[in-house]
């Protein structure tokens, strides 16, 4: 069975490595400060106790007052998984560090989030729309998109 | 000593194709030979039972495409809704069957024929009278097992022996 690690115990490990990067951690969700996502990601991948080498998916949810980007990571040998989140509050040009150099699988999914939500990912090889044509204005999956 | 490098694989593949030359083809000639479709087939048009229908509009609400339009007026005498206008736009309908499934009074069925192409987009909209249950329109057994018994059994490709001629 895939054990989904609870946010608390992983949060403690992250805290001692990057103090102040965990915004909130409860039993099933673990929120990371938005600008520390890349370091936490690299940490989660390299430490041998966790070594989350497989990124299941990256997606974003529009929680009306802020965007929430959700990463589901899992490790194939230990067969455990973890869901971490990052929030960005400003709606004009939300930005997050891209995790493409840690997991190459995030390439198209981050472009899709940019295309449908407008969240820019710095450090992404070619950050442009994936489904809609470049002239399209607005980001459809936002709640305030008519 | 595996001989699979020197044309044996190609030869085996060739024997398979030549064997198919002697087998009965699996295709059937549509307009002349008609296969029986499934008894639960979700045909394109709806069949509406006016007596059972109470005008509750559940079908219009559950239709994901919003293809069903129902207008009712109240009839104080028998305190019952009278259905003024009942239209199903088969152009929008994706034949998902949620309306037939959700009708609490079993007043809506699927028709069992699939050859209902039209020339005009306006003809696609099925009015109230076209939906009535007339004898020659076969009712599909989708969600109604008793109606399924009356329909012919589905012809399956498995039963049609494709080995011998």
């Amino acid at each position, binding site marked *: *069975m*895939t054990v989904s690690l609870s946010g608390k115990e992983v949060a403690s490990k992250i805290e001692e490595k990057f103090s102040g990067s965990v915004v909130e951690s409860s039993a099933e969700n673990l929120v990371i400060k938005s600008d520390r996502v890349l370091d936490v990601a690299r940490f989660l991948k390299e430490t041998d106790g966790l070594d989350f*080498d*497989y*990124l*299941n*998916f990256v997606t974003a*949810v*529009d929680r009306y007052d802020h965007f929430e980007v959700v990463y*589901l990571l899992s490790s*194939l040998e230990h*067969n455990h998984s973890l*869901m971490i989140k990052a929030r960005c509050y400003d709606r004009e040009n939300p930005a997050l560090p891209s995790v493409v150099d840690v*997991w*190459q*699988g*995030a390439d*198209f999914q981050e472009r*899709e989030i940019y295309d*449908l939500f407008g969240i820019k990912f710095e450090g992404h090889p070619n950050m442009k729309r*994936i*489904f*809609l044509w470049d002239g399209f204005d607005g980001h*459809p*999956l936002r709640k305030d998109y008519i | 000593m595996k001989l*699979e*490098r020197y044309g044996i*694989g*190609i030869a*085996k*593949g060739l*024997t*398979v*194709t030549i064997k198919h030359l002697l087998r009965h083809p*699996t295709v059937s000639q549509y307009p002349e030979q008609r296969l029986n*479709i*499934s*008894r*639960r*087939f*979700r045909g394109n048009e709806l069949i509406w039972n006016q007596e059972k229908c109470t005008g509750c509009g559940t079908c219009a609400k*559950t239709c*994901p495409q919003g293809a069903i339009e129902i207008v009712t007026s109240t009839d104080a005498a028998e305190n019952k809704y009278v259905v003024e206008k009942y239209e199903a736009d088969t152009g929008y309908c*994706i*034949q*998902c*069957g*949620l309306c037939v*499934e*959700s009708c609490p009074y079993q007043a809506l069925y*699927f028709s069992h024929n699939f050859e209902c192409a039209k020339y005009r987009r306006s003809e696609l909209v099925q009015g109230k009278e076209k939906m009535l249950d007339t004898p020659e329109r076969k009712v599909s057994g*989708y*969600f109604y097992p008793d109606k399924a018994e009356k329909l012919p*059994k*589905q012809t*399956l*490709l*498995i*039963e049609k022996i*494709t080995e011998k001629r």
Partner: protein
Amino acid sequence: MAVRTEPFVLNMGPVHPSTHGVFRMRATLDGEVVVDIEPVFGYLHRGIEKLTEQRTYNGIVPLTDRLDYISSMSNNLAYCLAVEKLAGIKVPERAEYIRVIIAELQRIAALLIAVGAFLNDCGAYFTPFLYMFREREKIVDLFEMVSGQRLTYNYMRVGGVSQDLPEEFMPALRKFMDKMPHYMDEYDQLLMQNEILIARAKGVGILSGEQAINCSASGPVLRASGVNWDIRKADPYSIYDRFDFDIPTQTTGDCYDRYRQRVDEMRQSLRIIQQAMEQLPPGPVRAEVPHLVRPPVGEAYARLEAPKGELGFYLVSDNSIAPDRCHIRPPSLINLTALRDMVRGWKVADLIIIFGSIDITVGEIDR
């Protein structure tokens, strides 16, 4: 005097005989050798994730049919698993067994198309494709008997299955089950040891294990690179832990191994269906669920081993009759991230085979 050559951009455009649908690759070629390719998506983007926000939970099931339209039953099942996990619904025994039989039949049907299309790209002029379509017709006949439609089944509901199996389903399935192995051996004999296919496909477009994991590939593409990861075994959903079947893996992860991997997986699915048929219990097929399901506030992610890979639904609900957010993990789109590295340096003919061996459906990529 060296001949001055410059690479030219060739548009393997949305309309191309072997891009499996409206998929476009802008390939820069130097003569026949592929220098770089840039996939272009969005020709079949219908905004399904936006549509799900205005539909009731049961109204979304017809939408999931249109994601990976070659294996709609698996999409239905994945979505229903997610909603049941979110709302905490217990599915009756008979429905679980029916779901396993139908999902494994759908896997065989989808893998048949994948293998047929791959062989067709290699040049075997439609013969394997038509043989495998004949088997797929038999499976689609069974699905038509059960659900009423031949492609967009809309058969599974939250809490179970929409209707019970008709009584003539079991004899037809039994007849299919004892004829299928004979046809499977015939496909192997047709092209498996074919020298030309081995010359064309072995060692072409190699995807190593680490690269596959790093590109979060899943399904036959991942297992063909030697990674033993199958969700039916690693994280068994519904009742997959009751059946014994094994997970075939290959070694080098080239096009030939992906083709062989899919053929082996079809045989495993036959084993599962055989066991599920024997243990099929009587009983209700659908839990007591209101037609307009209203799950509590929260989120849930459920996934299953679809024929293309790990298909998952991430649902966020705010206690209303429509989900607040429904994200679909598209195995076809994510498997394509590795395409660019696999294809560089090979010829145009190999680009077509490597792309064919990844086996994508555009409905799932563009959503």
